[in-house]
């Protein structure tokens, strides 16, 4: 009994920004039992991938959904490879042809040949480079702005490693007639004549150039290893080793499948062309047959149908194929070099306190007798403890006041934030491509501290600290988004990661040096983290003039133009009465308003001009904390206030006892 053959449903992946795509995997999973995660993987990104295989009835039901979503797809009955391409040993160059010499046959390419060329890299360097590029792009630009290597980059990378060039000559029906395989450096280039080169890559480039010059139609594929197709997975060849059958079989399958796809594409183009010619209203017909998406997809795919572009343009507004929003497509700019931020006041306060205490203690042992005597005297009569008690009370009241300030401030919605001191909750969004140096996470703020082990008391001393500087970022809630300028803010990140020198990744931490003398601590506010911001909202004056200013300018212009004024002289008495001036004024106002609205529509929605920054008054707080709960923050300040109070009370009692004794 012959084995039942299944067709493959292959799709051209689309950008994640396409509207309505999010629900498609779930829809396909529910209706056809497909794995939603696998479907999503097959649909998103770039290049081609197998969506599913199965009985014809099921695939025929899936394809309309893909068409409606504007996803280019092919239903392919794959041709089983009948032969593997023969290895080329040499060439013979004719006036209009190029002949490939294999051991037992000659394959000639001429002006009527249709050639499918597959340039593959068997070392896996192309795949590695592409993956590395995606990871870096994901970190710096976000998932929506990913782009694979283009053909030029793929060719360049492949030629630098272990390239193999497969050439399939197709017949008039675009079916594989014969094929040859060229291994870099394993052929005699003498036959290339003046085109030969002394470099392996140079010879392959020359062959590709000659093929393009001499063949009627050439299709070059460089995505072997990148396309997710069945039986076409790359099996890497270690450097220096010749590829065996195991590595070459997937490449052969890939070549035959690409020939099938090309045939389907040509057939689809011809069918559309014929339909268009028959109907004389080609675009409308294409739209009716394939829906608006067909027109859009065909145009997007470079299929030139008469009138197709017009339909795509006309229907584009209502088509499900919509480009990703500009914000998603535009990569984030790099941040400017900015000076590091000041450490926040809590640490500053503690530091001042500890430094004062340390200096006091140092004075006892190090500095001369006079100073030591003074300090001893200060301790004996209670003045020094009183001084420290005063500092502790000040700290206690500072944190108590701060706690109450935060508790007393209601949370505003970003859409309606009023100018002045405000409190907003939302998620952090980057405005610049800030990436944490250690964990390579996209973030809005990072701080990196270097610590060195103090072998005397086994503690860690901070050696240096660096941060990303005051890079503006955005905060977003359900109602809108606005900019935060973190200059002068108390920044409180919660994500903390320790690392040791020489670590490749934080995941390897456990397997690292047993007793290191140095370590790094990275604190970040990652993109998308819930943040709480208390600061001063202000709206820098926009550069463009206001509506009123523009109206006044237009009226002034009207007054100065005698010819224009004459148009409003309804009774023709040579001067403008108050009623006539009123008419003129209303017209000008309306015209300016319309211009203004039209301009704002062309510009698109303007982002909020409100910026949250440091208050001009020093006693007002400016805090950016990575927390979803205000209570979490205020509780911390309450505890600090209590600690300072207890400490201050103890010192005050000590000071009193000494004072009274004295």
């Amino acid at each position, binding site marked *: 009994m012959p084995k039942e053959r299944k067709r493959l449903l292959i799709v051209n992946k689309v950008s994640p920004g396409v509207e309505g795509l999010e629900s498609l995997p779930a829809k396909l999973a529910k209706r056809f039992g497909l794995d939603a995660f696998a479907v999503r993987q097959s649909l998103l990104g770039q290049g081609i991938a197998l969506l599913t295989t199965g009985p014809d009835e099921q695939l025929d039901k899936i394809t309309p959904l893909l068409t409606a979503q504007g996803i280019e797809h092919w239903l392919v009955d794959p041709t089983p490879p009948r032969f593997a391409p023969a290895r080329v040993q040499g060439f013979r160059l004719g006036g209009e042809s190029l002949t490939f010499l294999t051991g037992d046959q000659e394959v000639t390419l001429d002006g009527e040949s249709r050639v499918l060329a597959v340039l593959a890299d068997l070392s896996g360097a192309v795949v590695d480079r592409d993956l590395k590029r995606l990871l870096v792009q994901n970190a710096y630009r976000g998932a929506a702005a990913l782009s694979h290597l283009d053909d030029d980059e793929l060719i360049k990378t492949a030629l630098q490693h272990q390239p193999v060039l497969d050439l399939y000559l197709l017949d008039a029906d675009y079916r594989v007639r014969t094929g040859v395989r060229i291994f870099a450096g394993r052929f005699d280039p003498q036959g290339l004549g003046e085109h030969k080169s002394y470099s392996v890559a140079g010879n392959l480039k020359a062959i590709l150039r000659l093929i393009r010059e001499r063949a009627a139609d050439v299709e070059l594929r460089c995505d072997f290893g990148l396309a997710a197709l069945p039986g076409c997975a790359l099996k890497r060849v270690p450097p220096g080793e010749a590829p065996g059958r195991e590595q070459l079989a997937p490449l052969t399958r890939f070549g035959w499948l690409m020939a099938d796809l090309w045939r389907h594409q040509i057939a689809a183009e011809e069918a559309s062309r014929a339909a268009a010619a028959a109907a004389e209203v080609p675009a409308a017909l294409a739209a009716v047959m394939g829906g608006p998406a067909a027109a859009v997809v065909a145009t997007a795919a470079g299929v030139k149908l008469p009138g197709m572009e017009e339909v795509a343009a006309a229907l584009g507004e209502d088509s499900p194929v919509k480009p990703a929003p500009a914000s998603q497509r535009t990569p984030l700019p790099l941040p400017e070099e900015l000076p590091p931020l000041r450490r926040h006041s809590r640490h500053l306060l503690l530091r001042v306190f500890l430094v004062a205490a340390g200096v006091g203690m140092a004075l006892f042992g190090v500095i001369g007798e006079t100073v030591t005597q003074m300090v001893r005297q200060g301790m004996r009569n209670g003045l020094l403890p009183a001084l420290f008690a005063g500092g502790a009370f000040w700290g206690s009241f500072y944190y108590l006041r701060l706690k109450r300030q935060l508790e007393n401030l209601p949370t505003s*919605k970003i859409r309606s934030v009023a100018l002045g001191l405000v409190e907003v909750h939302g998620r952090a969004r980057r405005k610049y491509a800030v990436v944490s140096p250690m964990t390579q996470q996209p973030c809005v703020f990072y701080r990196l501290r270097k610590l060195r082990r103090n072998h005397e008391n086994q503690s860690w001393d901070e050696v240096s600290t660096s941060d990303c500087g005051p890079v503006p970022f955005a905060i977003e809630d359900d109602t809108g988004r606005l900019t935060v300028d973190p200059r002068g803010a108390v920044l409180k990140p919660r994500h903390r990661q320790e690392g040791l020198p020489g670590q490749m990744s934080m995941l390897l931490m456990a397997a690292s040096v047993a007793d290191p003398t140095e370590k790094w601590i990275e604190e970040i506010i990652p993109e998308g983290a819930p943040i709480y911001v208390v600061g001063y909202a202000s709206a820098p004056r926009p550069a463009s003039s206001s509506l009123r200013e523009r109206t006044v300018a237009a009226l002034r212009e009207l007054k100065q133009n005698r010819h224009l004024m004459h148009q409003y002289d309804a009774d023709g008495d040579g001067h403008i009465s108050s009623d006539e001036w009123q008419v003129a004024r209303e017209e000008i106002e309306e015209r300016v308003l*319309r211009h203004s609205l039209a301009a704002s529509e062309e510009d698109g929605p303007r982002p909020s001009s409100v910026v949250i920054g440091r208050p001009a008054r020093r006693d007002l707080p400016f805090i950016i904390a990575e927390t979803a709960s205000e209570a979490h923050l205020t509780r911390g300040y309450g505890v600090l206030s209590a600690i300072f109070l207890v400490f201050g009370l103890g010192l005050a009692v000590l000071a009193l006892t000494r004072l009274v004794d004295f």
Partner: protein
Amino acid sequence: MTLWITLGVILLVLVLLILYVIVVYNGLVTLRNNIDKAWSNIDVLLKQRFDELPKLIKVCEGYMQHERQTLEAVAKARSMISNAQGNQEKLAAQNTLSDTLRSLFMVVERYPELKADKVFKQLSARITEIEEMIADRRELYNESVNIYNIRIEQFPDVIVARLFNFANRELWRIDPAHRADVTVAFQSN
């Protein structure tokens, strides 16, 4: 000696208490002013809505020749705000204006040409945006009042509040008519 120490401790506790009272008092004053500011911030938006209305009416007039009554109601409600005396009267006038605007937008459904007018779309979107912002700021006002009212009733702030006569503040309340259930009647042919 013990007496001096006791006196010193009492003095210290007194100073700390006074400082605490100052912190609480200042906090309550800030809260009270926050409420006034939140109320004024609503007025800022109401003024913006007030200024946008003549433009909207002007655009509607061109299309809605048969809806003079609705347009006049909006214009009248707008002028009521200018003439209103006191907060309660102003609040009532603002509510009336919101109602008439709602009626206007309902009537607009009968005029597809007006709905398609670019200027009308922009203006109605702007007014809707302002209405949403007004709603947000009313919530913020209520939040400010709520924080203040809780503070002045909680211990130990209640002592300072009573000492300095900090009184409860009113939350913003909607027109009682808007609390009534909405009756939807489907007409059968």
